[in-house]
């Protein structure tokens, strides 16, 4: 029997809980060569900002034990080019499209959302208030509970589509941020963005990435991500999209048990760009083995 893998994030219905995380699938073109994107629950675009961003100078990445640090710096084509050249391909892909928005000011978040709201293909917005790698964007807001609330409130004012606030783990109490987002009308939160980290060359004594610090991702951060998801799940009544070091279907199930309604694959896409479809297979087999008919029956079923 094929179990029902569909899940709901606010008003957004996904055919399965597998989402591809922002910044790890570009705008869909490259990864579509490795798998049928129409099988995937949702694709989250690389962060789009109002104006193009060239990104940080190299070195942008460095490998770390079971993970990697990146400081890409939100390199993206900008909103105008995104609409003109990237949306046409994304329309061909029969997958739910979520647009990730990054900005350097509260006004820019609102303006970006307002303009992109007109694009019918975009079904939801993921608001990136947690990029650790650009000075003026992201973390400056992601660290401030009031700013997260204010951004959510204003973005809510310009779209009726699903709003997901992408939270930073680099805060004292992530549940407070999830609560602020919920109160101001967000439909869901995604957690976690990368953890701030660094790595130095012991012979030159220089940082291995030019930006000095970067965002840590990969299996190394999975236990942290699970703990954050669990914390939000126990304290705040809002759908959670779990992110952080998922490499296979077992990791994905673990996130759902800890409270995630859906999950995003990030760094694994770099290593195994067919992971998305493989994980769907794994979910089906697990549900059959455990006699689960609806995958939603797994969400937040932790026994503590």
């Amino acid at each position, binding site marked *: 029997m094929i179990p029902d893998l569909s899940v709901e994030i606010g008003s957004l219905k996904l055919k399965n809980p597998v989402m591809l995380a922002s910044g790890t699938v570009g705008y869909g073109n490259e990864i579509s060569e490795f798998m049928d994107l129409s099988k995937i629950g949702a694709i989250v675009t*690389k962060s789009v900002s109002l104006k193009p961003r060239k990104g940080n100078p*190299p070195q*942008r*990445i460095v490998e770390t034990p079971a993970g990697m640090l990146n400081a890409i710096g939100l390199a993206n084509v900008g909103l105008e080019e995104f609409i003109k050249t990237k949306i046409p391909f994304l329309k061909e892909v029969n997958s739910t499209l979520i647009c990730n928005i990054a900005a350097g000011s509260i006004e820019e978040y609102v303006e970006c959302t307002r303009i992109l709201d007109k694009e019918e293909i975009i079904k939801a917005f993921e608001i990136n208030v947690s990029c650790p790698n650009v000075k003026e964007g992201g973390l400056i807001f992601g660290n401030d509970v009031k700013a997260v609330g204010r951004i959510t409130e204003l973005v809510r004012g310009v779209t009726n589509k699903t709003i997901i606030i992408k939270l930073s783990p680099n805060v004292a109490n992530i549940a407070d941020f999830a609560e602020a987002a919920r109160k101001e009308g967000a439909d869901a939160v995604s957690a976690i963005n990368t953890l701030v980290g660094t790595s130095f060359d012991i012979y030159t004594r220089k940082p291995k990435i030019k930006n000095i610090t970067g965002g840590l991702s*990969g299996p190394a951060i999975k236990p942290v991500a699970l703990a954050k998801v669990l914390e939000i799940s126990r304290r705040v009544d809002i759908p959670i999209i779990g992110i952080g070091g998922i490499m296979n279907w077992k990791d994905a199930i673990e996130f759902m048990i800890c409270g995630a309604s859906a999950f995003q694959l990030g760094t694994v896409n*770099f290593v195994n760009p067919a992971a998305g479809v493989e994980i769907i297979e794994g979910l089906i087999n697990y549900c059959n083995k455990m006699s689960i008919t609806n995958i939603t029956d797994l969400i937040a079923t932790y026994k503590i």
Partner: protein
Amino acid sequence: MDIYKIIVVSNTALQENVFLLKCLSSEIASKILPGQFCNIKVSESDFPLLRRPFSICDVEGDYISFMYEVHGEGTKLLSHKKEGDLIDLIGPLGKGFNYKSEYETAIFISGGIGVAPFPYLTRSLDGSIPYKIFLGGRTENQIHTYGLHNYEISTDDGSMGYKGNVVQLFEKHIPLLDKSKIKVFGCGPNPMLRALKELCLLHEINCEVSVECAMACGFGICQGCPIEKAEESDKYYLVCKDGPVFNIKDVVI
């Protein structure tokens, strides 16, 4: 490009730290071009996590080979692969050398393990164009002549061939060449490529180089491997997708 699981035929040491990994893959052998690369998963576990990019070294029938130097955990694990083992790789990736364009003599210049793409590249010329190879290394054990003919050698310490660096060795030959009718193909460490760029710009010599860069995915989605454009400062190509081969004029090395 696709993901393949291919079988190891041999993995032999050419020097103390340099290995030649030969695998069977008719799909890749039939598609891959000189200068392109494959991104190899060296471990079945998540440590090390990322794949390692290696230039194609040679293609013979259905066999493909990669020449690599052991300098970290990843390449050390790769050196432990044995005949019959399976290797998970993604390829072919990137853009290769434009070796079919108009020129009368090809010059190949390598530093250390930068020689890796040249056996396949020189073989692909198929005897149609005369060529000369300049191999450089710090010392004798950094000179790898596998699959090559018609080469001259330089070592920084003079332990083999010309004493000096490989760009200096090439410079000595320039008066003997018709500069407008040669094309240089280079691969090696950045200081060597910088010196080569300076020399080629000075003499207006057409030159393509294959550059090395840390990368996560190898196919354009992680944006982790930028190289600055020479024409527009602060704008970048991606080494994995726009390269790894670039005209030396187009990039800041």
